[in-house]
């Protein structure tokens, strides 16, 4: 990118921070060029340049700034990148800055500063909770054409890239670990030390660019007598040196499923100016952990007051992050608004770096701790027992309205007064991050002492430690984590010991917030200023109150009605405040109100990472036969059959599909056709009980089959419905060869193994799939025998020597083959199995030898026509799991002699033979050229009123070039008794119904003379 080095921002401190000042970088935001440093986030770099206004809110298009310094950010969502690398809704607080980064604000038009949609804010009174549900109800016809398009246009924040061909690469990977530690703050590090010391495989993952968590933002804490940062550095170094520890940074754990299966999203190259081609932009890790340690810390809660969403209002902890980690001043004149001691640290730090602390507004009547005293000693004005009522300012906070309150009720008791400020650092208490714990069905309990939920019972093998476990003081959290890490390693089967907690010195303080669930306000009831609970969804305190007034008392209902805690927030910032308001409105304590379930994903994750490499040619496998190259060379069109690619038809000289198929069918009937049938399932049966087993599987007998003979069989599910069919051949006394449908092969094998292993373990039968051992070529047609003879066949192929439905080993063109004389076309036909490595060679030999005999390759489409002319069924086409052998007119194949077979009992129920079941019949159209679409429904009277009484549907339908008319099969109610009757097939789109007559299913060569050539 060709940008002149702009000047570093005026809000950058001259030293400090964890940025690399040696590497200044340029970036663009909304078309303007700015400067920052490597190590900045986009948010810190914008703040360094005094840019607070970074987006417009979802519903009201209110100006929004940067609220937090991490992945909990609800406001600062931007588009990053250009062209086919553009990604929407990236949290500016997470996006690492690089040279040339280009970002845009979202949800504004025409510009961020002047946004037309902001009129929604003025009309806010008309957009209450449940607005959509209430407004867009009637009339129903308006929904599709008017309401939905408007809502769709208004909904959503960022835009997906216009170029849908994402230029980035994404990958997935799997990892097993003994202990997974989520969160690399001080607690996570302690847990890792304890767990790793045991020799267990430990993974430590953190969403941030470096380990250390919140401690990186603190400046007044020592561990082991040295600044906490030294301890972090040392500890990280020690962990990195251990071969059993894997550390992942910029990696967010976003899902926690059953059996300790967790998903992580690692940003591999998001932070690089040039993303190398060989690396994925993001990588999704699928982790299987023996034990999980959740050390995710806590989220600071916002305080609820009018205008709490204005740019310049920030979380107090985030203010410390921007100063300590990025050397950035988020403002010049600050007001601290708090209900606990923690924000006093922010006040002191602001004072340290020269920011005027105009006032500290503390809701507590009598705060007393070292920190409070320190602030007072520095001359800061502390308004105890006060609240901020409203924040004014158009695009940035400017003036705060403050008043004394009754600390118990929150009622305003004093005269309001005003203080100017361009920064409000607020702290409403702390929420342990129980989200993943809850996702994994862990239970949480309300801690009245600390005013938060904390984990109680675990569903998975897991433990929460540190602040995540409601232990907020540093020493306590470190000890809790050290013990937790050791326990996790022990639970994973290792001998572990908790590492000693080092000496810790941090300011002593009261973390317990003094909570007022009722928002202090002096406004007339119903005209309170907008005070946001869920910033991302623009849910205000009034919305929640309205929901309660309208009768939504269940927390789950309130969530859905107001959308609080939905979308990216998932309750991170909003959950407790919303529950507090709800509990106040309902007059019930929070534990009785309950909480909503925290859902997957914990943070938004790109579809790219979830898809990984399962895209384009790797989306699924394409299984190829050994003759595939020949089919391609000869211009075949292909169709997917299961995962197989099968030659569909072979057009010559620009033939249409219809022309090609007609030619292939005719040529097969008049001369000979050759088909690649390699994909048929083939299973080798071995053992003394093979015949008995086949008798139990099929409806007909196989144990009586003579060696060297073949038999067609129908296999039923235990419900009596047809499951698969195929020809099985007896190769030896205890040796059979079964063929199945192409698509059914794997299922049939599993099905049979299940019966053998679970029901009939006493049967001595072994099954082995040989589908791919053999390539199968079928030569069919009156010239079939001559072609094989011309090629040089070691056995006699005459009817006497090689009768229909028999098998022989032979040599063909010098190659060893198994020849089966079976037919799916009704013609004289030989199915030749050859070891697959010779499949192509044999095919080529046959093509050559067949040339003088008019041998024509035909694809699956011609195969379908040929078999349909003969009325042969295809399982899955004529059947759909609700069709039994009687329905197919195949009662002849159901043995009456056998004592049992799978499906026999079901098949013997009266209902299975009722005459009004859908039964397979042939359909012949009056107009020989009319081809009924497959799936078309049959009726007796096409002029009856809707809904018509339907008889059934067409299952197969083709044009028969040999017969000169179309042929079709259909499943019709009581069809077997209706032969000769007229039926109609109404068409859609104003086409005339097709008239047809019900016939037998065999259209061609009903006597079966052609089978012998």
């Amino acid at each position, binding site marked *: 990118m060709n940008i002149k080095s702009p000047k570093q921002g005026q809000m950058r401190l001259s030293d400090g921070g964890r940025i690399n000042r040696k590497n200044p970088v340029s970036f663009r935001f909304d078309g303007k060029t700015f400067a920052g440093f490597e190590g900045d986030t986009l948010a810190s770099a914008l703040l360094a340049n005094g840019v607070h206004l970074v987006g417009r809110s979802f519903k009201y298009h209110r100006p929004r700034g940067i609220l937090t310094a991490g992945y909990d950010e609800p406001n600062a969502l931007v588009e990053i990148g250009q062209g086919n690398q553009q990604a929407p809704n990236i949290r500016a607080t997470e996006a690492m800055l690089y040279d040339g980064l280009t970002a845009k604000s979202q949800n504004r038009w025409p510009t961020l500063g002047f946004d037309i949609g902001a009129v929604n804010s003025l009309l806010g009174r008309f957009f209450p909770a449940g607005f959509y549900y209430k407004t867009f109800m009637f009339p129903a016809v308006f929904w599709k054409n008017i309401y939905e398009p408007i809502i769709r246009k208004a909904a959503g924040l960022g835009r997906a890239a216009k170029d849908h061909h994402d230029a980035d690469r994404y990958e997935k990977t*799997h990892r097993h670990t003994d202990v997974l530690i989520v969160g690399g703050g001080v607690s996570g590090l302690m847990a890792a030390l304890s767990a790793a010391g045991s020799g267990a495989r430990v993974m430590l993952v953190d969403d941030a660019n470096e380990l250390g968590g919140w401690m990186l933002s603190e400046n007044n804490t020592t561990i082991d007598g040295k600044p906490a940062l030294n301890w972090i550095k040392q500890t990280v170094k020690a962990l990195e040196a251990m071969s059993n520890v894997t550390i992942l940074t910029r990696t967010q754990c976003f899902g926690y499923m059953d059996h300790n299966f967790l998903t992580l999203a690692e940003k591999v190259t998001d932070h690089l100016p040039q993303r190398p081609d060989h690396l*994925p932009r993001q990588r999704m890790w699928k982790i299987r952990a023996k034990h999980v340690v959740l050390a995710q810390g806590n989220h600071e809660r916002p305080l609820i007051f009018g205008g709490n969403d204005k740019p310049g209002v920030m979380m107090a902890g985030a203010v410390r992050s921007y100063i300590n980690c990025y050397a950035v001043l988020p403002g010049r004149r600050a007001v601290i608004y708090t209900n606990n001691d923690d924000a006093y640290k922010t006040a002191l730090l602001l004072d340290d770096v020269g920011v005027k602390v105009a006032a500290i507004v503390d809701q507590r009547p009598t705060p007393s701790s070292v920190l409070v005293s320190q602030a007072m000693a520095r001359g800061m004005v502390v308004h105890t027992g006060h609240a901020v009522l409203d924040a004014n300012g158009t695009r940035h906070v400017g003036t705060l309205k403050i008043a004394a309150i009754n600390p118990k009720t929150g009622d305003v008791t004093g005269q309001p007064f005003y203080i100017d400020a361009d920064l409000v650092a607020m702290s409403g208490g702390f929420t342990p991050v129980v989200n993943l714990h809850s996702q994994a069905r862990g239970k949480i309990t309300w801690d009245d002492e600390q005013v938060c939920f904390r984990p109680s019972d675990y569903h998975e093998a897991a433990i929460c430690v540190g602040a995540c476990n409601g232990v907020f003081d540093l020493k306590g959290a470190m000890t809790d984590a050290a013990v937790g890490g050791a326990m996790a390693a022990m639970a994973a089967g290792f001998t572990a010991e908790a590492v000693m907690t080092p000496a810790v010195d941090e300011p002593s303080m009261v973390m317990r917030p003094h909570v007022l669930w009722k928002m202090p306000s002096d406004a007339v009831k119903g005209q309170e200023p907008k005070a946001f609970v869920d910033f991302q969804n623009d849910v205000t305190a009034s919305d929640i109150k309205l929901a309660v007034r309208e009768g939504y008392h269940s927390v789950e209902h309130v969530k859905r009605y107001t959308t609080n805690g939905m979308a990216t927030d998932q309750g991170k910032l909003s959950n407790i405040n919303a529950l507090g308001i709800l509990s106040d409105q309902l007059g019930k304590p929070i534990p009785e109100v309950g909480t909503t379930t925290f859902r997957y994903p914990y943070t938004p994750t790109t579809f790219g990472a979830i898809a990984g490499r399962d895209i384009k040619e*790797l989306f699924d496998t*394409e299984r190829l036969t050994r003759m595939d190259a020949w089919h391609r060379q000869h211009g075949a069109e292909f169709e997917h059959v299961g995962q197989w690619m099968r030659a569909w038809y072979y057009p010559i000289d620009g033939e249409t599909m219809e022309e090609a198929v007609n030619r292939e069918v005719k040529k097969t009937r008049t001369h000979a056709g050759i088909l690649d049938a390699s994909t048929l399932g083939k299973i*080798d049966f071995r053992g003394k009980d093979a015949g008995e087993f086949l008798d139990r599987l099929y409806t007909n007998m196989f144990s009586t089959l003579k060696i060297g003979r073949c038999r067609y069989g129908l296999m039923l599910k235990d419900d009596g419905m047809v499951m698969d069919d195929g020809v099985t051949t007896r190769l030896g006394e205890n040796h059979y060869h079964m063929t199945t449908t192409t698509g059914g092969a794997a299922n049939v094998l599993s099905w049979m193994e299940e019966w053998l292993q679970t029901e009939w373990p006493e049967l*001595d039968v072994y099954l082995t799939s040989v589908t*791919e*051992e053999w390539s199968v070529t079928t030569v069919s047609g009156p010239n079939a025998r001559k072609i094989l003879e011309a090629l040089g066949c070691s056995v006699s192929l005459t009817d006497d020597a090689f009768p229909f439905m028999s098998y022989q080993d032979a040599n063909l063109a010098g190659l060893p083959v198994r020849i089966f004389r079976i037919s799916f076309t009704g013609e004289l036909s030989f199915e030749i199995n050859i070891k697959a490595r010779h499949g192509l*060679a044999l095919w080529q030999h046959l093509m050559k030898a067949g040339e003088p005999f008019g041998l024509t390759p035909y694809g699956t489409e011609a195969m379908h026509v040929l078999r349909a002319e003969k009325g042969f069924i295809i399982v899955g086409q004529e059947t759909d799991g609700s069709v039994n052998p009687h329905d197919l007119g195949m009662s002849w194949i159901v043995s009456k002699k056998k004592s049992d077979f799978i499906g026999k009992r079901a098949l013997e129920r009266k209902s299975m033979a009722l005459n009004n079941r859908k039964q397979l019949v042939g359909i012949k159209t009056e107009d020989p050229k009319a081809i009924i679409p497959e799936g078309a429904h049959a009726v007796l009277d096409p002029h009856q009123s809707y809904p018509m009484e339907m008889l059934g549907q067409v299952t197969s339908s083709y044009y028969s070039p040999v017969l000169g008319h179309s042929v079709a099969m259909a499943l019709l109610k009581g069809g077997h008794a209706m032969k000769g009757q007229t039926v109609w097939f109404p068409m859609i789109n104003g086409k005339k119904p097709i008239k047809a007559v019900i016939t037998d299913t065999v259209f061609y060569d009903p006597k079966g003379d052609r089978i012998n050539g």
Partner: protein
Amino acid sequence: MVSSAVLPGRSALSQVAAIQHPVPKGSAGKITIKEAPFHDLINLRCQPDNKMANALIKKLTSHSLPSANQAAQAGDRAVIWLGPDEWLIMAEAGAANTIMANIETANLGHVATTEVSNAYGILTVNGKPSRQMLAKHCAIDLDAGVFTSGTAVQTIMGHAGIILIATDENSFTVIGRSSFMPYLVALLTDASIEYGVEYRPA
């Protein structure tokens, strides 16, 4: 019947050309993938406690039937555990008929052999980051301390069922059904782009 192996033929991957991706800076090591065609393969079904069968297999392959998730190799021949009563015998080209005849005629009880030499393709995968690379599409624990040399599993690689065998710390054998082999080569070479890779047809 003549053993088909003595005649020339085409392997499962004969239509797949060589593939190469350069070794990028910072690579953990280059991956080499090769086809190892025309081994004879026999599927053996047998009860694991069949003493006579164990003795005969030992005579034929130098190893008795390996236990769960193990492969035993000696010279050209190997026995790979596939299931509680199923093994795969790998042998030099042309050996299948003799081995099968030996087993079938030995009166071992309920034992079956089926030749599957053509049903599978075989790849060898070598290179320092082999485990990392394979883990991209395989959910099995491939840690060097767990999936030790001689470990053999039936698992899923991407969308294809495979038999995966660790032959040493950085080397693996991947056996897949023939029709899946072009997909497997595409999948594994793609997963190796991060390290640099060469696929060499036989």
